[in-house]
C-alpha cells in the first residue's frame, strides 16, 4: 500500500520543536521513505515564537505538503490550537494531558480536538521528568510515542537521535531514556488503524546515493560537485546556510571562502575571481541582490563568468525576512541599469537546486555572463529525499580558450564571432592580455562608444545567451499531466510548481483535462516551448507568490496570451486547495458551477 502521511509538530522556540522534526524526518528518510518537509520559524531568535515542523512521508516522492496533516503534535497548546483545524478527520492529535487548572478558558487542546479527530492526551511532561529528571526532553518523548503508535522500527529513530546529539553525550543519554519512555507508553494505548505506514519502496540505482537535504544544502552540493574554487558572501536570511555550509566544505577541498564587508564586495570579488578563470560564486537574498545590481551589469558588459545564488524572502526593503515569497523575479531578470541580459534559472524542487547549483557554473563559463540561480525561502528550507548520481553530472571546464588566436596579435578579447561567444584568455596566459572594462568597447576591449559598435556589442551580449536555451543535459521547461489539448494548463516557476503539480493531479482525478508546465530557465525565456504548450490550453492559470504576477508579466512579455493570474503574498507556500479551486472554476466546475448544474 502506498504510504502518504503528513505529521506536524507545533510548539514554541524553546520546546525543541524543530529539533524533533529534524530527527523525525531523518528517521523516516533512513528507513527508505521519501520525505518532503518545510518548517516555520518565528522571526525572533529568542523568545517563545511559534515553530512548526511539518513533513509528508510517502513511498513515491511527493511534490508539496498536504493541506491537512494526518498526525499533529502539540508541544505548546497556545500555538497549536489555532492549527487544530489542519488535522484531518480520523487524524491523531497528540498533546499534553496535564493540568488545565492554570490555563485560561479554552487554553487546553482537549477543548479543541474536533469531533472526527482522535485525541491522544499523554503525560508528556511527566514521562520526560521520570525518565530524565528534567522536562527538557518532552520533544523526544513524543518521538518515542510516534514510533510506538505506528509500529515503526525504533532502530531508525535511535540512529537519527544519535546523529543529532553526536557530540553531546549527556543529551544523547537523556534522549535515549525519553525515547524509551514514549515508546513504552505507546504500548499501553490503543493503536490508530487509520494511519498506516506501508513498507518503503527503494528506487535507488546502484552507485547513486539517497539523501534527505534542503534546497540550500542541495545548491552547495551542486556547487561543490561542479568544482567551485572561490566563494565570497555576506550573511542574509534565508541564504546564509549556503555560505555556512560552503565555509566548512570548501577548505576540505582546497577551496577558498571569504566573508566580505557587504554584498557589493561579494559580487565584486566574484567578478574578480571569475576574470582569473576560477569558478566563483556568492549567495544572497533580495536586499543583497539590490546592492549587487551595478556589478552584475559590469559582469554582463565585461563578459565575466559569475554565479549568484539568490533565495527570495518577503519584500520590499527588509520586508519579511523569515517568510517566503517569489517577488524578486523582476529584479533577477531585469534588475540594474542598461540593457544587461543575463541567465536566470529557477529550480522547482530540491533535486533541481542540486542541478542548477552545478549547471550555473557551466553556463557562466560557456556564455561568459553572470548566472543567477533564483530560489526562495520555501525551497531553501524545504527538505526532500534526493537521489544523487554516482558521477556528478557537471562539466569541469566549459571555457572557450583563445589558443593560437591569442598569439595572433592583437588579441581580440571581444571578437565578434558567429555564435557571439569570444575566446577568453585569463591572467597568466601570454599574449592574451586585455582590459575588462565597464565602458562600451571594441573587439580589443578598448573604450569605444560609436553607434555601430554599441549596436554590435549589444547584439553580441543578447544573442549569445540564446544558445543557453539549448544548454546540454538541462531541463529548461517540462510539461506534466494530460497530453494534447487540455481545458486548463498551469504554468509556474520555482517552489510553487510543487503545489501546482499536486493541484493538477487532483484536478485530473476529478476528470478535468489538465496539464502543468514548469519553466526553469527564466532568462533567456524559452518562448518556443512555452507558447507550444499554451497553444494546447483552453485556459491558462499562473499561480505564484507575489502581488502582481511577476512571472505572468514575464510570460506575457514573451508570448501574447491571456492568462489567469493567481498571485498571492501570504508569506507561506500557496495552498494546493486554492489552486485546485481555481482550476475547477476555469474548467467550469467551480463550486458555483456545480451548484448550478
Amino acid at each position: 500500500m502506498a504510504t502518504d502521511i503528513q505529521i506536524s509538530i507545533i510548539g514554541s522556540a524553546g520546546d525543541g520543536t524543530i529539533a524533533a522534526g529534524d530527527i523525525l524526518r531523518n528517521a523516516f528518510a533512513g528507513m527508505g521513505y521519501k520525505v518532503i518537509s518545510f518548517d516555520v520559524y518565528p522571526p525572533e531568535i529568542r523568545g517563545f515564537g511559534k515553530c512548526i515542523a511539518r513533513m509528508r512521508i510517502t513511498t513515491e516522492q511527493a511534490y508539496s505538503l498536504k493541506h491537512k496533516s494526518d498526525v499533529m503534535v502539540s508541544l505548546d497548546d497556545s500555538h497549536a490550537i489555532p492549527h487544530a483545524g489542519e488535522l484531518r478527520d480520523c487524524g491523531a492529535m497528540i498533546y499534553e494531558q496535564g493540568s488545565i487548572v492554570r490555563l485560561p478558558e479554552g487554553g487546553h487542546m482537549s477543548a479543541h480536538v474536533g469531533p472526527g479527530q482522535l485525541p491522544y492526551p499523554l503525560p508528556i511532561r511527566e514521562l520526560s521528568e521520570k525518565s530524565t529528571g528534567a522536562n527538557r526532553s518532552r520533544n523526544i518523548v513524543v518521538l518515542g510515542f510516534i514510533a510506538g503508535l505506528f509500529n515503526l522500527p525504533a532502530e531508525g529513530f535511535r540512529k537519527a537521535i544519535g546523529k543529532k546529539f553526536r557530540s553531546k553525550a549527556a543529551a544523547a543519554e537523556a534522549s535515549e531514556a525519553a525515547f524509551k519512555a514514549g515508546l513504552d507508553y505507546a504500548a499501553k494505548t490503543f493503536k490508530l488503524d487509520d494511519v498506516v505506514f506501508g513498507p518503503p519502496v527503494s528506487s535507488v540505482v546502484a552507485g547513486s546515493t539517497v539523501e534527505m537535504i534542503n534546497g540550500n544544502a542541495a545548491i552547495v552540493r551542486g556547487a561543490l560537485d561542479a568544482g567551485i574554487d572561490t566563494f565570497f558572501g555576506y550573511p542574509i536570511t534565508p541564504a546564509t546556510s549556503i555560505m555556512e555550509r560552503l565555509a566548512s566544505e570548501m577548505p576540505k577541498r582546497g577551496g577558498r571562502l571569504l566573508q566580505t564587508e557587504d554584498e557589493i564586495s561579494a559580487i565584486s570579488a566574484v567578478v574578480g575571481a571569475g576574470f582569473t578563470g576560477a569558478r566563483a560564486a556568492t549567495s544572497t537574498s533580495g536586499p543583497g541582490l539590490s546592492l549587487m545590481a551595478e556589478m552584475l551589469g559590469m559582469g554582463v558588459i565585461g563578459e565575466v563568468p559569475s554565479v549568484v545564488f539568490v533565495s527570495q524572502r518577503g519584500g520590499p526593503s527588509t520586508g519579511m525576512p523569515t517568510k517566503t515569497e517569489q517577488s524578486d523575479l523582476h529584479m533577477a531578470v531585469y534588475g540594474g541599469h542598461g540593457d544587461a541580459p543575463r541567465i536566470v534559472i529557477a529550480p522547482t524542487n530540491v533535486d533541481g537546486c542540486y542541478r542548477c547549483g552545478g549547471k550555473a557554473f557551466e553556463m557562466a563559463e560557456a556564455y561568459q555572463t553572470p548566472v543567477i540561480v533564483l530560489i526562495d525561502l520555501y525551497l531553501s528550507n524545504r527538505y526532500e529525499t534526493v537521489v544523487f548520481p554516482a558521477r556528478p553530472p557537471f562539466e569541469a571546464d566549459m571555457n572557450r580558450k583563445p589558443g593560437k588566436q591569442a598569439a595572433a596579435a592583437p588579441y581580440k578579447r571581444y571578437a565578434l564571432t558567429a555564435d557571439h561567444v569570444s575566446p577568453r584568455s585569463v591572467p597568466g596566459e601570454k599574449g592574451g592580455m586585455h582590459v575588462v572594462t565597464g565602458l562600451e568597447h571594441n573587439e580589443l576591449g578598448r573604450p569605444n562608444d560609436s553607434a555601430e559598435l554599441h549596436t554590435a556589442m549589444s547584439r553580441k551580449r543578447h544573442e549569445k545567451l540564446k544558445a543557453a536555451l539549448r544548454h546540454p543535459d538541462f531541463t529548461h521547461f517540462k510539461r506534466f499531466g494530460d497530453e494534447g489539448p487540455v481545458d486548463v494548463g498551469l504554468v509556474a516557476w520555482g517552489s510553487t510548481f510543487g503545489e501546482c503539480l499536486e493541484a493538477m493531479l487532483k484536478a485530473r482525478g476529478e476528470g478535468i483535462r489538465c496539464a502543468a508546465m514548469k519553466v526553469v530557465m527564466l532568462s533567456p525565456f524559452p518562448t518556443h516551448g512555452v507558447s507550444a504548450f499554451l497553444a494546447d490550453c483552453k485556459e491558462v492559470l499562473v499561480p505564484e507568490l507575489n502581488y502582481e504576477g511577476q512571472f505572468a508579466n514575464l510570460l506575457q512579455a514573451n508570448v501574447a496570451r491571456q492568462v489567469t493570474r493567481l498571485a498571492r503574498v501570504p508569506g507561506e507556500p500557496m495552498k494546493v486547495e486554492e489552486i485546485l479551486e481555481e482550476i475547477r472554476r476555469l474548467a467550469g466546475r467551480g463550486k458555483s458551477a456545480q451548484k448550478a448544474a
Partner: protein
Amino acid sequence: MGDIKPVYLEEKLKEIEESGRLDYRSKTLPTWCPGCGYFSIVEAVAASLCELNVPNENAVVVSGIGCSSRFPFFVNTYGMHTLHGRALPVATGVKTANDALTVVVVGGDGDGFAIGGGHVPHAARRNVDITYLLFDNGIYGLTKGQTSPTSAIGFRTPTSPYENPDRPLNPLLMVLSYGASWVGQAYAGRPDHLHKMITQAMAHRGFSYLHILSPCVTFDKTHRTYSNLGMQVRDLPADHEPTDRAAAMREAMDDALPALGLYFREERPTLGDALDGLVEKAGGELPGKPAAKPARKAARR
C-alpha cells in the same frame, strides 16, 4: 612642472627587449590633460614592474572609475577597469583566486575614500597581498572638478560654489589605523622618489598603500597646484622609524606639510596565508601553485 622627467630610460627598454618581456607601457596614449600628475605615475609603475621582473601576463592592474582609473589601458598587462569605488573588492577576488598574480590597484581620492571608502579598512585588515596606489588630487577630475573627500575646507567647486563646508579626510592616518602593513606617501612632482616608493610597495608582501599627491591642472588652479605642493612637501624626518605605527600616525597628522617617504612597514601573514591555514585546519590539500595558473583549479573534485 619642470622636474618631471621620464624615468623609463632607453637602457631599460633594451633590457626589456632582451629579457623577452614586453614594454610595460601600452600603445594606447593616456587620455589625460597635458601636465596632469598622472603621467608620471604611469611611467613609474611601468618602470617598477620592469625592475621587479614581473612578466607582463602575470600582472593585473585593477581600477575603479575616474581620470586616474583609466590607468589600466595605459599599461601592457592584464587589467580590469571596474566600477566607481569597487576596485579593491574586485582585486581581492583576483588575488584570492590566483595568488601567483601581481595585483596593483589604482584609483582616485573620490573612488577610494568617498564611494569606495567602506572597502579600504577590510582590504587593509585582511592584509590582501596587493598594492594600492591612491592618486589624490583633492578633486573629482573625471566629472569636471567637484569637491572630493580630500578637498580643503573653503575650496570652491561647481558643487560647493560658496565654499566646501566639510573638512578633509586624512587617508594616511585612516589606513594606518586600519592595519595596513605598508604605508607610504609620494608626490607626482618627484618622479624618481615616486618610482622608488612604488617599487618598494610592490615588493612588499601584504597590503601596501601608497598615497600619491597629484595636481589636477585643469580644475584646481588654487590649492593642490605644482607650485603650492612643491613648497609644502617635505621628507619624513631621517630618524623616523618605519616599524613604529604610533610614530607613523603622528607624522601623518601633520597634513598641512605632507611628508614623503615610508611611514610604516610590518611583516605579517597575508589573506592568502590565512586561507591556506584554513585549508590545512580542515584537513584539505593545498592546491599546487604553478606560476600564474589559476591556482585553485588543481584542487577540484
